């Protein structure tokens, strides 16, 4: 199938070795568009010499100059690099930091960002061949799949350049990794790397641990943590258990997966072989026994045997590539066979030992980042991984790898060819099963803290253990050339949704972001727990929820409201039986007294005393009557009922008699009452008036009825001629005498006269009933005098020389009747009071 390819134009099958399509003659292998470089696409070399003439002059000069400089200085620069490079820098090239260093060299052509330059401490260097960058990529990515990429069984033309360079170039090449590989070739055979031997020889790692690394400000915290881990393991080995409960939730995901993952064959095979080896050695060299003795060795054998094929081929190739390292491996093998307990620091690589010994020579990137807190690498905080650049993630965890085996019992390693690489697998299995590994807090150190310091690349290396059954093959073409895309750019690159997600296990939420800046990321925004409604909304009834007490109160309120509308019976008194005999007695008594006194014309009762009983209003009336203009008109208003005629006629006659005697005025009668006109005529026909006005028709004028009430009064006052055809204006009247038994009638005349600012004096001739209601007008000066009833007439008559004597005729009947009525009221009232008390007493007893 691989030999058949489809034509991109016609879609028909063609052989792979064909250059053009057999059917459409189109090119079967179209050149990739350089402008669109897809992720993972390897750059294609092109011969640009033919394009040289078209370059600008300045560019050609620059290129020529660079060629000359490269040609003259290239050999020397290599030597100068070796000489100028500090020894620890070369040593560091053997470890994982070598990749960083080489990366810096590889990326030298590119403009290294300032922040990267400040971390790495390296300057821009001339561009290296891209073949060297593949190793750096391995360091950066740290993915086991990268190892699988470099399978030697691939075609020769697909062989990576870096591998080809390794095969072609002697080990004397001044590359750090090559040097380290050369040194590690003998351990590959003798299962003892050079740096391990060196650490054993020096045996100063314990001293390194004893040294207060923390005192060095320029040392990374994870290095200090490594020290504390070792010490904690020493303590943990003596303790049966830890106080910290074993909580899997507190463990990072990658660690949990490592625990649950299948053991040796899968886990060990996915870790870098050299790293497994280091772990195994560390575990073998541990002086402190593990709480749970784990026969990792045997398991390691099985793991080795089963995972031997998974050993990276590039390492395998290295084993047969550097025979010069066999002598070193022999020494290492001897050391293992002797089962010499190797101290923990012995696992420290040479570069680390040098770092501890020479603190001032700490690499620039390490010193610049030494101030970073340990918490940033804490596995409990997954986000901390994202804050660290990938290259630093790749570089930092090596120390933890070195310190990890410190807590493991030292196991004699088996020298079986490349088994040193697989021994780490068994150790890893032992770590996951060891109780001491669990429950150790980060601060206390130990394996947990050790694993916490593992970077994500190592975590990524352990994660796919669960997926080892179906590893995702990543071809070399899928890898990104570090020379083309820096790691930080690679970290920012959106991930293809279709690609496998190695960090999927960090979060249980596998939601893939498809929009915004987080597009392509998965599980970065986990939904909050309980976000979605977990239960059906509670249904509420619209029916009124009321208790029995509330219903009773509502019923009571309803009854109260209905009772308001019901008619309330009026409490009535018991009917008082009319005393017909009493009524007849009263009528007879009054009738008898009045008739006797009137018809008998008795003068038994004395008249009111003039000097004592004359009131002020009566004095005013006397004054008005005495000041009437001679021959002038006097308006007499007749506004009383015929029933009151006797009282009012008796009251007005003395005044008219006095005026007539003194000034002979002409009387003008007008009335606002229907019977007033007749009453006026009746007044003038009295016997007392006969002698004066009877034969002189010009003495009085009866204007008749004045309709309209107050309006008629106002109209008459304003224009008497138009109203009642009186020939003179109202001011012509010298005096206005209002005869009324009604207060309303008297008020109307007072108000209308005051409104027109009439100065004509007003005198009221009233009944005794209406007198109190007109008294205020006299008090206010609106009326000049008041003659009230028969009592006032009697006084006025006494002031008029007892003329005409009408009051005197009625006075005995009046006084006798008043006394009788008073006596009846007093006597009858007393009797009624007693009877009432008796009745109420009887009624109360009856009840």
């Amino acid at each position, binding site marked *: 199938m691989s030999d058949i390819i489809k034509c991109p134009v016609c879609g028909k099958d063609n052989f792979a070795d064909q250059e053009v399509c057999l059917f459409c003659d189109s090119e079967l292998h179209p050149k990739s568009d350089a402008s669109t470089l897809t992720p993972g696409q390897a750059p294609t070399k092109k011969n640009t010499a033919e394009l040289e003439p078209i370059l600008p002059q300045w560019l050609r000069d620059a290129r020529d100059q660079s060629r000359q400089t490269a040609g003259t200085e290239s050999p020397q620069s290599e030597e100068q690099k070796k000489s100028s490079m500090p020894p620890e820098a070369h040593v560091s090239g053997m470890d994982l930091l070598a990749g960083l260093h080489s990366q810096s060299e590889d990326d030298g052509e590119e403009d290294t960002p300032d922040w990267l330059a400040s971390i790495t401490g390296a300057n821009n260097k001339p561009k290296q061949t891209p073949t060297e960058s593949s190793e750096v990529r391995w360091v950066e990515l740290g993915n086991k799949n990268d190892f699988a990429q470099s399978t030697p069984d691939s075609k020769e033309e697909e062989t990576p350049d870096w591998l080809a360079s390794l095969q072609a170039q002697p080990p004397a090449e001044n590359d750090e990794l090559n040097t380290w590989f050369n040194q590690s070739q003998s351990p590959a055979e003798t299962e003892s790397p050079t740096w391990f031997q060196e650490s054993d020889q020096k045996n100063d790692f314990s001293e390194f641990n004893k040294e207060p690394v923390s005192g060095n400000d320029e040392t990374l915290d994870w290095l200090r943590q490594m020290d504390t881990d070792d010490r904690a393991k020493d303590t943990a080995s003596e303790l049966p258990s830890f106080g910290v409960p074993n909580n899997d939730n507190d463990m990072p995901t990658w660690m949990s997966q490592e625990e649950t993952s299948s053991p040796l064959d899968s886990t060990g095979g996915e870790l870098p072989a050299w790293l497994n080896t280091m772990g195994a050695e560390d575990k073998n060299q541990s002086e402190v026994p593990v709480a749970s003795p784990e026969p990792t060795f045997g398991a390691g054998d099985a793991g080795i045997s089963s995972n031997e094929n998974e050993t990276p081929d590039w390492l395998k190739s290295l084993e047969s590539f550097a025979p010069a390292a066999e002598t070193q491996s022999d020494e290492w093998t001897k050391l293992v066979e002797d089962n010499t307990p190797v101290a923990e620091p012995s696992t420290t690589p040479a570069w680390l030992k040098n770092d501890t010994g020479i603190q001032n020579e700490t690499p620039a990137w390490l010193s610049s980042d030494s101030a970073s807190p340990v918490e940033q690498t804490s596995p409990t905080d997954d986000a901390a991984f994202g804050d660290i650049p990938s290259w630093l993630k790749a570089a930092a965890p090596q120390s933890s790898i070195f310190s990890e085996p410190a807590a493991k019992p030292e196991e004699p390693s088996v020298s079986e060819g490349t088994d040193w690489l697989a021994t780490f697998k068994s150790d890893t299995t032992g770590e996951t099963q060891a109780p001491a590994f669990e429950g150790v807090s980060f601060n206390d150190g130990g394996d947990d803290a050790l694993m916490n310091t593992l970077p994500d690349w190592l975590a990524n290396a352990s994660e796919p253990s669960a997926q080892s059954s179906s590893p995702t093959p990543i071809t070399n073409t899928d890898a990104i050339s570090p020379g083309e895309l820096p790691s930080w750019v690679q970290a920012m690159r959106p991930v293809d949704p279709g690609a496998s997600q190695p960090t999927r296990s960090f979060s249980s939420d596998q939601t893939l972001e498809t929009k915004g800046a987080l597009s392509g990321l998965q599980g970065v925004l986990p939904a909050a727990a309980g976000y979605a409604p977990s239960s059906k909304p509670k249904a509420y009834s619209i029916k009124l929820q009321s208790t029995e007490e509330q219903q009773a109160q509502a019923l009571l309120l309803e009854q109260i409201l209905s009772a308001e509308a019901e008619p309330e019976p009026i409490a009535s008194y018991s009917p008082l039986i009319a005393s017909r005999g009493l009524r007849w007695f009263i009528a007879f008594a009054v009738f008898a007294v009045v008739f006797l006194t009137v018809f008998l014309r008795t003068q038994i*009762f004395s008249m009111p005393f003039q000097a004592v009983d004359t009131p002020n209003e009566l004095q005013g009336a006397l004054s008005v009557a005495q000041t009437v203009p001679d021959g002038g008109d006097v308006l007499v208003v007749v506004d009383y009922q015929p029933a009151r005629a006797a009282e009012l006629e008796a009251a007005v006659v003395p005044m008219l008699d006095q005026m007539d005697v003194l000034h002979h005025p002409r009387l003008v009668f007008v009335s606002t009452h229907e019977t007033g006109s007749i009453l006026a005529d009746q007044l003038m026909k009295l016997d007392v008036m006969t002698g004066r006005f009877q034969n002189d028709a010009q003495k009085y004028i009866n204007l008749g009825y004045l309709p309209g009430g107050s309006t008629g009064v106002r*109209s008459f006052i304003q224009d008497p001629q138009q109203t009642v055809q009186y020939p003179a204006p109202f001011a012509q009247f010298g005096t206005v005498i209002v005869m009324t038994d009604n207060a309303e009638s008297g008020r109307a005349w007072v108000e209308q006269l005051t409104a027109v600012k009439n100065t004509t004096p007003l005198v009221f001739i009233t009944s005794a009933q209406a007198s109190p209601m007109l008294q205020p007008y006299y008090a206010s000066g609106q009326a000049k005098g008041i003659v009230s009833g028969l009592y006032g007439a009697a006084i006025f008559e006494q002031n008029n020389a007892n003329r005409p004597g009408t009051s005197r005729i009625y006075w005995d009947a009046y006084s006798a009747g008043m006394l009788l009525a008073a006596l009846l009221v007093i006597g009858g009232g007393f009797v009624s009071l007693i009877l009432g008390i008796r009745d109420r007493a009887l009624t109360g007893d009856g009840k």
Partner: protein
Amino acid sequence: MRVLTIAIAIASGVLVLLGYFFPEFMGLGSIQPFLLNTALLMAAAAALVGVWNLTVVHADKIRRREKGGVYSAFLIAFLVMTIAAGLIPPGYVLLRVGAENVIPSEILFKGIIFPVEASLMGILTISLLYAAIRLLRRRTDLMSIVFIVVAVLIMLGSATLPIAFGGNIPVLSSLSQGIKNVLAVGGARGILIGVALGTLTTGLRALIGADRPYGGK
């Protein structure tokens, strides 16, 4: 129509009111008597309308032969007689009794109206006296007693004793005058002030159309 009546009422009231304060302004002083005379004529016409309405109502009772229809017949009969008596000119001699001419209206007044009303007033006196006597039997409270005592004091103060007993009642006469001139006048003044305020309010309500005694809601 209702709006028209309201407008006429308000306009008439405003003009009359302005005529009080500004009689010389734009002839308001002359408009006011015109409106007053018009009101007098309308009041007189209203009296005729009232008489006509009374006649129609009682005539209907007679026609239906309702209970008390006889009194209605007497009412209508004397109504016609009184109107007829009033239409006789003053100089016309209808009846002469002796040397004196008999005026029909005077006959009706002196023979019917005056004695009837005087008799009613006398009966009222008997009724009031009887009620005063029986008051304390039904209600024996403070106000009833006060009412009876004041009435007795006024009656005793208004009367005099026979000459044989010395004439006036010195104390009671003064006490009676004091009650009439102080207590009664004080109460009457309060009533009049209230009436004045009520009249003012009624006038204002009529001016602004809030109160429509002339009809309409």
